[in-house]
């Protein structure tokens, strides 16, 4: 059996990738995908623990996270389309209308 720590390290790497991508990328779509990556990193650690401790709760959490992520994707993509229509760009650095 693969030890728990392997899963956790992989989960951490996935999350770190997500964070890094969020920070350095300018394209909104990419940033959006980085967020999904972070969520999935977290999901991985949930299921790993669930398997380790034979507890179903962790797996149930994963389903919730996936549902939320799906909903977020729907709303988020809609927002991205709306932003693109008004700003004609997907560069987040230029989406700064709230700044004074």
């Amino acid at each position, binding site marked *: 059996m693969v030890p728990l720590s392997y899963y956790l390290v992989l989960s951490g790497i996935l999350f770190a990738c997500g*964070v890094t991508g*969020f*920070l*350095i990328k*300018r394209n909104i779509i990419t940033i959006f995908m980085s967020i999904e990556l972070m969520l999935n990193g977290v999901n991985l650690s949930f299921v790993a623990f669930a398997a380790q401790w034979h507890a179903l709760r962790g797996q149930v959490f994963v389903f919730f996270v996936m549902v939320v992520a799906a909903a977020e994707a729907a709303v988020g993509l809609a927002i991205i389309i709306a932003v693109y229509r008004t700003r004609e760009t997907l560069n*987040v*650095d230029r*989406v*700064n209308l*709230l*700044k*004074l």
Partner: protein
Amino acid sequence: MTPNLNLWLIPVLPLIGATINGLFGKRFSRQTVSAIALGFSGAAFVRALWILVQASASTLPHIESLAPWIRSGDFQVDFAFYLDQLSLVMLLVVTGVGFLIHIYSVGYMWEESGFYRFFAYLNLFMFFMLTLILASNYLLMFIGWEGVGLASYLLIGFWFTKDSAASAGKKAFIVNRIGDFGFLIALFLMIKHFGSLNFEQVFQSVSGMPTEVAGAGLLTSIGLLLMVGAAGKSAQIPLYVWLPDAMEGPTPVSALIHAATMVTAGVYMVARSHVIFDHAPQALMVVAIVGTLTALFAATIGVCQTDIKKVLAYSTISQLGYMFMACGVAAYSAGIFHLMTHAFFKGLLFLAAGSVIHAVGGEQDMRRMGGLRHHIPWTFWTMTAATFAITGVPLFAGFYSKGEILWRVYSSGNTVLWLIGVLTAFLTSFYMFRLWFMTFFGEYRGETAADHDDDHVHAISSSPTAPAAHGHGGIHESPKIMLIPLVILAVLSIFGGSAGGKRFDKFLSPVLHNHMAVDGADATTPAPEEKEQHGLEILLESVSVLAAAAGLFLAWLLYQRRPQLPQEIAHALGGFYETVVHKYYVDEIYAAVFVKPLIDGSTRILWHGIDQDVIDATLDNSAEGAREVSDAVRHMQSGNLRSYAGWIAAGAAVVIAYMVWMGTR
């Protein structure tokens, strides 16, 4: 059962007048303003007379509690009024003389632009003075005490655009604060030790205490502190300096506040607190000494003054000294008697002086007067009556009251004080007749009639109150409305003393019974000795009359017979004369010793040091620091989405690092 006297009406009536005139007077005509002011102060006088009639039938003292004021545990102070023979005398003097001076002021102030303001203040003063007199506890008395100080300040500074008047008002106020400080501490001591400020309770507690003959104890401290307050209000050494400056106010104010009524509040307070003083002989001795020294000191300064009002101011201080001298030998009734006669003749002197000043077009320097007796005969004759009264010419009011004081001082065994008193009587006579001769006799030394200031109080002639028109340009008699009060006061100055010290003493005896007990001891002495005493009294009175006559003669010699002689004498005296002319440099000494260090200290330490360098600097620097910090931090909020995410990530990293560190510890 005593009838309801409605004492509260007396102070409240002038207050109504003050309120109406103060709030709406600007829109009223001068006639309306004077009608309101005279109406309400006159009503107070009528009330006082009515109470005199009622009260003599009813039993005094009469207490009237209006409303509770402070209730704190056992300690309670009410808005309550207290009427006994002592307050009745004061009541009549204040309302009576006050009303007359109100009448006079209508004529005197007619041309002034602040006419309504003047009468509002004057009525306000009456309100506070009557509160002071009728209060049934020290705290309410203190309200009146402070209130008359306020009214005095407002009226001294009536011509507030004039710098000297404004600063004279301030000086009076501040010097009075010093006295009030003593008064307040005395009140605190009373609250602490007697748990009450009501006259009756305090005096009852005090009566139960032993007389502090040897060591100075609680009662002596209270007495001395009360005397500090009285010295401030009644212009005694060392706090007298404000009164001469207070002459910057309009002359009726000098007459009402700074001669007849307010400055006598200290005497009234000491007489009111006589139970305390009777139990503290040392405090009483201090009162006597302060009074005597003030009487002499102020009289010597008065001799060298050339401003007619300043002479009267120093004379007032000196006469107040007499009153304290009387109180100091436990002859309170003599002090109050002199207070009353003094209110008549000094009020009259000031009003007559105002009439003189009016006549010569605002000139106050006696060296530029002279020979006025033919021009202003009414003023001359009334002033003569007052001068005779103050110098103690037999059968005039001052003769009785001053004689009574000197007799009581002598019979109490204080021969030195008596001698100083007689010397002061001589000086009083000298400076008063000097004023009299310089003003009314000889040749007119002022500017010629053509130079007479036409802007001065003249339009009075066009007023319905004084229909008698008088020509412009000359020295002229005052209008009738000013002369009537003069005449009434002159009559009072002549006959006011015939009530006699003995009868007065008897009238006040229910209030001042403590010292009557001493008198009672006297009464048990054999009759022949009393007769002997009576002979002695006559002898002593002749001595003071002789002193007055000597003063008159000297004044006649120097200012009538040989007018050049004073110059030579002044020259011969040299430095001493200079010192006296400059009022012993007391103002200068106070300025150097108290005022200048205070101003310097306030400027350097309190203003520059504490206010600017500590308080302001703290605020400025904290504001500056907050701005610098936020200046540095505000760049975090860039509006850039990724930088926000970076901050979140960094924050999360810090939290995780902290938790890891905590976990591994």
